[in-house]
């Protein structure tokens, strides 16, 4: 994704002490050295880079197949940049947060470049197929369990998104399987995350 480098270089126009690390991270990212990119983005964040550094680090985590950490790092709100939002959608998708992924892609459609747009459409079609199957109670239970575990592990955003996914999937069933549990978990996760709004 060379778009990411463009985004980062553009952000460097407002230069700061962490710029060199952001640039190093972007170069490493483009070269496929994602571990190095992650480290550089995290160092940049430590040295005072803006919140985008977190999102870049999250994108590197997606590439490193660490989607749960990526979801947590992206946070509950949509990314301002469509490329980063695409990575957030990928993180959600890889973490089996299909509703989260679909909403992220839906919100950014029309702002992607042509190639990303095509990938986003293909991903949404895949998500639609996945969600078209009958929702089993075990699936809802799985999300609630992982939500609790995420909260216990100090990952409130991930916990919140799992709870939201459980609520969305449970709500698709006639019996609204464990909807009340999902609502309660969302409330708990919001309190833990300090998030005042529902995740998208």
């Amino acid at each position, binding site marked *: 994704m060379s778009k990411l480098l463009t985004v980062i270089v553009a952000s460097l126009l407002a230069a700061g002490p962490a710029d060199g*690390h952001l640039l190093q991270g972007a170069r490493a990212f483009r070269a496929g050295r994602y*571990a*190095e990119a*992650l*480290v550089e983005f*995290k*160092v940049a964040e*430590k*040295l005072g880079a803006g919140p985008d550094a977190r999102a870049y680090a999250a994108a590197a985590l997606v590439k*490193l197949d*660490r989607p749960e*950490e990526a979801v947590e790092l992206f946070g509950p709100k949509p990314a301002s940049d469509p490329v980063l939002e695409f990575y957030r959608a990928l993180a959600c998708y890889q973490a089996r947060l299909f509703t989260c992924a679909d909403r992220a892609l839906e919100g950014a459609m029309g702002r992607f470049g042509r190639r990303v747009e095509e990938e986003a459409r293909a991903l949404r079609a895949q998500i639609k197929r996945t969600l078209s199957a009958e929702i089993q109670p075990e699936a809802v239970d799985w999300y609630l369990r992982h939500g609790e575990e995420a909260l216990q592990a100090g990952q409130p955003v991930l916990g919140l998104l799992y709870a939201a996914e459980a609520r969305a999937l449970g709500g698709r069933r006639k019996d609204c399987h464990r909807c009340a549990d999902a609502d309660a978990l969302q409330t708990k996760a919001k309190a833990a995350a300090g998030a005042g709004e529902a995740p998208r």
Partner: protein
Amino acid sequence: MIAAWALSLWASAAGAGPIDCSKVEPARSPDPAAAQAYLEVGDAESRQGRPDTAAVAFREAVRLDPASPAARARLLNLCRESGEAADEDFDRATRAVEEGRYEEAIAALGPRFAGEGRPDAAAALLYGISLYERGDDARAKQALQLAAQSPGTADAASVFLGLLALRAGSSDQAAALFDRAGGGAQGELARTARDLAALARRDVRLAVSAEVEGGYDSNVDQAPDRTPVAGLSGDLLYGATASALLRPFGETGPYAVAGARLRNLREIGDYDLAWAGGAAGYRFTHGRDELRVEYAFDAIWLGYQPFSTAHQLQLDGALDLPFARAGALVSARAERYSAPQIQKYSGPTFDGEVSLAWGGSATELKLRYRGQGHRSEEAEVRWLDHGPGVRAMAALLWGRLVVDAQVTIRTYGAEDPGFGDVVRQDAYLDGVVSLEQDLGKQLTVSLCVGGRKAFSNVGTLEYTRLYGGLGLIFTAGLW
């Protein structure tokens, strides 16, 4: 020595990660502030269980601040845990432990435990093993507890923590630690840990045991090879043994043992044997070094007639040397024979033995040299003998195998009128192979096959004896 064995098992189990452990080229312009940020990122990744990204961060921290010991130590630890490190001290210590040079291993690894910082688990395991072998139990425990916190070294560390507990007399705690190692480890380490757990449970302060045996002896009365009755001296045998052991302070300290044995022959009743005896002594230990002093008394009946009694004082010990485990034994035994025809054999017997051993408690090769002098009132039944011996012990999949062989060359003190006024000179070749297999925590089965070939300058004293037997041993700890 168990150390080299455990080390090989642990090393073969350790995995290697894709971490770049090549030499780090320092940056032209050091930047300690940025290096600190990399260090913190590396620590965070390390806590997440991501050694690959942590290593990337630590390498950059080292590059930007080559003088930073913290960054170097963290990178080195990661590389060691992944098996990628080129760590000369560690490699030297590993070789030293494998070859039993524990002082050298302690010297190589000691500095890592002298300063601040947390040594890696692999070094802690090696260091702990070395200290254990040298008898520094307190420091060994600290190092092994550190090694026990890492999944890659936890099982081997638990084995040695169990051995420490055993040495301290806490057999219950030792058994629990061996169980833990046996439950987590795979293959040979698991099997040995389970064996050690069984042994630890036997390492009680008051134990009783009983054995029943059956077998065959081809030459009960040591009939000469050239006589026509030689083939008629064989007989089936059966018997039982009971014994009790008391050691109120565990392996180290005072102890007492008493026992009795009956061994009957099916047909040759004159050689039915009864034995009763007891011993009391004190065992001193320092690490693996040990010294034991013991007094013993026993009495033998043959054909249910009193045969002999003896009082014995014995001193024996073993010491770990850099190249082997050295042992020595001296004893003095006052023997008195009851039957009129053998009373002339009464008198003191002095024994001595030196040995060198390699290996450990489960697998060991021991070379020894024994000597014995027997004094009696009649010179023709005094003797001096000596000769080399070897004992090999191995823990195999199907049990414990022991092979023992001894050569004895004996010269008597004077011409014997009973044998044509020649000074008897005998030589004995003895060999025995035994196999033990635990059937449970308290039951062991034992199979034994052995023999003796006796040579002599008196032809009628040459004989061959072969024997074999099967025993079932029950052991129970009462305290």
